[in-house]
């Protein structure tokens, strides 16, 4: 069953007087529980597609259906409610409020509605943090931890409201390769519990960890690759498939 789908999405950026089309009639459908990545060079429109599918950014034409709702018809308030309850986001750069500690930053989206069961929420947050290996950082300031730890905290925050889909915009982009693989392990384990995970990346090694890869170029999806579930030993094979597809389509 589709959890997110886009029909003929088009979007143009205006820079000065010039029009720059970034998405050209893109159609895509993502099933519940999929582990999917979008690949492509800088400026191909992959992040824009991700933000269009999550309703974070508006589109000029087309339709986005999320969990049966047409996002283009929803109000700002309804979109905000949706982001808070059914979606989780992991960004490339740490996006935290400086005035809150790590634990409070993680709790933040859930506390909007869940003030009354703060104890249960805190317990849940600590459990997730434990799973992500950062339970001992709960009371730290966001300036007192490393980039990798911060990204784990970002994933914890994305998970706090038990979302249906986690969107990641280059979630490993600012990390070294060891940290990046650790983050991918975590995302894979989240996906194995039934949560749909959708990533944007330009790194073949990251894309190779997912099970479905959409290749984008110049605002359009130009190819698609499906891979079996990652076993832990087949990374090199997967990498070869991803890279050869990239070469085939010239990106």
């Amino acid at each position, binding site marked *: 069953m589709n959890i997110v789908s886009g029909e003929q999405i088009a979007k143009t950026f205006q820079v000065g007087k010039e029009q720059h089309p970034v998405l050209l009639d893109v159609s895509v459908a993502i099933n519940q529980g999929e582990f999917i990545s979008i690949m492509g060079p800088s400026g191909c429109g992959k992040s824009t597609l991700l933000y269009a599918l999550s309703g974070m950014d508006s589109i000029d034409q087309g339709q986005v259906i999320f969990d049966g709702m047409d996002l283009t018809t929803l109000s700002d308030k309804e979109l905000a409610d949706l982001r808070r309850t059914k979606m989780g*986001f992991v960004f490339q750069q740490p996006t935290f409020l400086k005035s809150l500690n790590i634990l409070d930053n993680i709790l933040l989206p859930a506390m909007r509605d869940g003030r009354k069961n703060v104890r249960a929420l805190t317990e849940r947050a600590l459990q997730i943090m434990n799973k992500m290996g950062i339970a001992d950082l709960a009371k730290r300031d966001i300036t007192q931890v490393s980039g990798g730890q911060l990204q784990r905290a970002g994933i914890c925050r994305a998970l706090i409201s038990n979302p249906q889909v986690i969107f990641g915009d280059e979630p490993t982009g600012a990390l070294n390769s060891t940290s990046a693989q650790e983050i991918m392990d975590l995302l894979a384990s989240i996906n194995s519990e039934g949560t749909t995970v959708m990533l944007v990346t330009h790194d073949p090694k990251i894309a190779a960890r997912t099970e479905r890869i959409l290749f984008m170029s110049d605002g359009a999806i130009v190819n698609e690759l499906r891979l079996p579930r990652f076993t832990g030993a087949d990374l090199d094979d997967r990498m070869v498939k991803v890279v050869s597809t990239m070469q085939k389509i010239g990106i």
Partner: protein
Amino acid sequence: MYWKIVRNDMANSKLITGMTMLFVAVAALLVTLSAVLIVHLTSAIDTLMKQAETSHFLQMHAGEIDQVRLTEFAEQNKYVDEYQMNEFLNVEGTKINIAGTTLAHSVQDNGFSTQSEKFDYLLDLDGHVIEVANGDIYVPVSYWKDGIADLGDTVIVQDQTFTIAGFLRDSQMNSMLASSKRFLVSEQDYAAIQEAGTVEYLIEFRLKNLADLKNFEEAYTSAGLEANGPTITYKLFQMLNAISDGLMIAVILLISVLVVAIAFMCIRFTLLTKIEEDTREIGVMKAIGLRVADIQKMYLAKYGVIAVIGCMLGFACSFFLRDILLENIRLFMGETDKVSLIWLFTGLGLLLVFIVIMGYVQSVLKQFRKLSATQALRFGTMQGKGQHAKLLNLSANKRLPINLFLGIKDVLSRKTLYATMLAVLVLATFIIIVPQNLHNTIAAKSFITYMGIGNSDIRIDIPQGKQNEQQVSAVMDRLEHDTAIKNYTVLTTKKFTTIAEDGTAQNLKIELGDHTIFPLEYAHGEAPVAPNEVALSVLNAEELQKKVGDSLAVVINGQKKNLRISGIYSDITNGGKTAKAAFSDHSTDSMWSVVYSTMADPSLVADKRAEYAKTFSFAKVSGIDDYIYQTFGTTIHAIEKAARAALVIALLLCVLVTLLFMNMLIAKDQAPIAIMKALGFTNVDIATQYAARSIFVLLLAISMGTLLANTLGEYLTSTVIASFGAASFDFMINPLAAYVFCPLALTSVVLLATLFGTSRAGQVKIIEHIKE
């Protein structure tokens, strides 16, 4: 390149640049006005008293007078330059009819005089000594201001009709606080109306040297000369002339200090934000070897331009306002001849504003020096202390709604940033509450108890004279049997002699009676109760060098008795030199008596007052409300105007500052707003958070401002009031205004300004701030 930075800076922040300029302009305007008013008031009083040749020493006297003895004393005393004796024909208000209405309601002692011979001249509105023709009359200028009299109106006294030929400035009795008013008529007319009232004498002296006044006063007293009435000296005349407008100037000065402070805050906030924004660029400049001192100079130049334009604007605007504020001073005191002094002080005031602003900018710019190039390049910010306030944790928060929590948390995390807004709102609360409390205090009926007058409903003054005693008993008899009267007391003033330690004798007027029924506010100690106790007015206590508990030797019934000083109180009546005691005495005649009474039903005061005025035609019957209104009316009115202006100005400032602050905050907070929106917070959530910040800061500010107003404000105000003769002083607070209306007004304007100022917050595009 630096110029480019500054120019861009100005273009990008038109609003804040304009605001800063506006505040500088308002500060300059107020400072200029204060300078103009102070110089004008002091020099006009000076000029008036010089032109009129005000007496250095005035002894009012009723009763027998030995002119030969007085002239001899004046000729022989080495301090005296000139001496004269003027007559003052005291006429009851009911017998003076101006343009169809009598002065029956006036609490002033209205009387007629002829022009003085040697000094103490009555002047016309051009400052010339008036020469009055037969049939003409000159009326005190205050009656013109109050709309009671106009040029060409008829004044009827007994059967004599006069035409108002002009209005007079009386350097001695101009002020409404001086209880007598002189009308000027020709000598021939004066003789014709002599029967209309009783004659009092103004025994007046000019000294060769004003510094010898105290010695002269002692000589006059020890000579045992006429002293049946108040004694007033040059200093008190000066003070009486200065009070009302002096208070207004004090309030303007207070406001201008606050506006300068607000201008500072604008500058501090813009500069700090700017430095933060430009940190990376400045770091680059430093790294490639450019001199930061040059960048500093450019910013200094920018604020120099702002300060100069602001000062000039303020100066220009002051021309429109000064005439309105000078109206009263011009009318009562006349023009100033110190025009060059006004320009000098205005110039100095403007220079002061300019220097203070530039000095402040310089001190804020010192932050540039602390900035290290590597720091700027690596972090793009100056390394500050941890931003995280440990006190409040979301995980431990069960009570506060999330948006309220986040708002408060943000304020606590960025204290230095919000300190700006807090300080402005504290100041605003302060300038709203202090003038209001001051007005409330002075306008309150009980304020007169700080001024030496008991708080009652009706006051009956029975003048000195042979029939005084019969008149007093007639009044007492009537009051005793009048069921509408709740209680009353008679206070009779008699003259006694005190003996100082060195044996010198001095006159002391003591008001005898029960002082506990309509008590005064005592600065120290309490009212006299036992027969061996006496209370002194502040002026008398100073002159006799006595404290509470000291003893004072007084000759009573031919015997020297030691009285204990039970208390010291402020007094502005009868020249400020009074005393009160509770002993009974039949050895000397009364000088005058005052009967205070309260009514069971206060709503009937006006009727009762009229009834008594009719019955006791020999006495002056006044309601205390009238008394306050006519005595302090001008002052109360001036302070009320100032309080209203302060309220409006403060609220406007709050709106401006909140708008400004929220605007700058939103510009600064784009990233956190985008994060919140990305995480599913709605625009309403974000607006609520900003409102929570504002209200939290505002509530803090209101509490701090109210506390400050009631402590520091009361202290400042009582210092000002003390200089007018009231030694001790407590704010009379109208709780509805101070604790309900003022916070409510502030909250509404700040909330509205916040909502308006943060309406842009929702327009933040998430993508622009999240996407790398």
